[in-house]
């Protein structure tokens, strides 16, 4: 479904601040995959997401989605079939607008016309969707979204994202800014939606246990490279200790080969 071919990204090329955020990377995401991505800060996880979402173009390489070359397609075009949720709950909703207005904006993607679509039937539909969240938000349809808590806003963002039935969703540490209880709730909700609507998903997380528990495939990134890609049974038998262990093994092997080359 998504195909990255020799994709790399370098920031500030030719200056002292040059950073290789992503080194030449190949990645094939299959339809229905639920991929979790781990790695330390600066490993290139968010760069990978930004490239897939189209926030900026890659320095080199080709990105294909459903066999179409989208390397130069701007973010707002790709957003028609990609849903993305950020770490910051503020980025998914418009705080000074009401719940129902927010849901209306997200109901259908693409350019909006001069139609008034928010009618009673639509409101009832939104209300039913909110009841499913079980947070009592259905009684607050006319409240401004900024009055909601971070967890509520993130849950609402998730709901609004699946309303438009995206082909791919990118979850960018979307529970990192929430307290443990809300984080667990939002994560469970994500899993529910992914299963219910068969969404192809990529999820960045800092929590190794979550990375192991969720999804069918796990990527580990370090220094702009994907250093580990496991799926299926191999993934389900992973443990946190085993994961840390493998990380050190991979990195030591490289270190040794570097030393061998230098000596």
């Amino acid at each position, binding site marked *: 479904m998504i195909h990255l071919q020799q994709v790399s990204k370098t920031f500030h090329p030719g200056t002292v601040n040059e950073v290789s955020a992503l080194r030449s990377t190949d990645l094939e995401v299959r339809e229905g995959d639920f991929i979790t991505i781990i790695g330390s800060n600066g490993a290139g996880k968010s760069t990978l997401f930004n490239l897939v979402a189209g926030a900026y173009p890659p320095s080199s390489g080709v990105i294909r989605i459903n066999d179409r070359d989208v390397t130069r397609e701007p973010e707002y075009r790709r957003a028609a079939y990609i849903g993305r949720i950020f770490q910051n709950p503020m980025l998914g909703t418009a705080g000074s*607008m009401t719940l129902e207005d927010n849901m209306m904006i997200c109901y259908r993607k693409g350019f*909006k016309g001069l139609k008034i679509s928010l009618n009673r039937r639509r409101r009832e539909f939104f209300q039913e969707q909110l009841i499913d969240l079980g947070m009592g938000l259905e009684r607050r349809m006319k409240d401004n979204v900024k009055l909601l808590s971070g967890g509520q806003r993130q849950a609402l963002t998730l709901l609004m994202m699946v309303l438009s039935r995206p082909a791919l969703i990118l979850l960018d540490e979307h529970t990192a800014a929430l307290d443990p209880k809300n984080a667990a709730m939002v994560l469970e909700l994500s899993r529910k939606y992914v299963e219910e609507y068969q969404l192809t998903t990529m999820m960045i997380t800092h929590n190794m246990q979550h990375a192991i528990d969720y999804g069918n495939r796990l990527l580990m990134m370090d220094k702009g490279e994907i250093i580990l890609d496991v799926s299926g049974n191999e993934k389900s038998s992973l443990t946190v200790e085993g994961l840390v262990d493998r990380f050190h093994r991979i990195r030591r092997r490289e270190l040794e080969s570097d030393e061998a080359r230098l000596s």
Partner: protein
Amino acid sequence: MVEGILVEGLLYGIMALGVFITFRILDFPDLSVDGSFPLGAVIMAVSVVNGVPLAVALLLSFGGGLAAGAVTATIHNKLKVPNLLAGILTMTMLWSINIRILGNRANLPLLRQDTILSEVVALLEPILAPEWAVLVFFIGVALAIKVLLDVFFHTDLGLTLGAMGDNQQMVVSQGVNPEWLKLIGVGLSNGLVALSGAFAAQYQGFADVNMGQSIIIAGLASVMIGEFLLNSNRIGLLTVRVLLGSIVYRGIMFLGRYYGYHINLTPNDLRLITGLLIIGALMVSRYRSGRSESARLRKSLRAGAP
């Protein structure tokens, strides 16, 4: 006197609605207003003098403002210039363009010409005195524009425009090109401003290329005063409060003009007063938000205590 304040308030209120769209809804501080206001006035004046049908002349003024706003938005979108600078560029260029439109002069009188206002006065002559006829006309115009704006901001496009100033990333995530939204929003805003300029030219009886000077500050002051009068998140009330704010602002200016001499004020001091008014409004709203924050803090501390 009262009818004069009301007429001015509503007339410039149309301009303030435009300023409200850019400053408050789009979060795009657009200074081209200082150029598009006289643009509307000069287009109207030249059309009236040349016998263009009045309705067409109004449409031309609106279209001129729309184009001016589109230029500002395009400079900002394509050259990635800060929006303030883009507005100043358009405003500066419009000064020359306005003089060109007037045929290389700085003003054009409309005395003894048939304008919309003189027609309205003639039409309502049997029942109303001229100044009240003008007031009735402007109540109708301002309300019509207000209602049209309210409807527009209930459409899917209008809602998305509303989200734009709040959260541009959300708009992008919904598959909408933010550049188009800025173009539409800034264009609409300047169209309204130019329309207001067209009415101002007819009301004053002349068009002058300098009549837009610091009009943006007047618009901003009106918007801010309005925000003290009413608090709501419903667009229908938001537009009403802009018009009310504009009327109050004109009232204050009127007092300054007619009674200011008791304290040695001259009309030249009005801009200083407007500026101080805005600074005062900013201070009060800062104080208010600080107070409500500390109130929330106290509340949550109390709630946290056993």
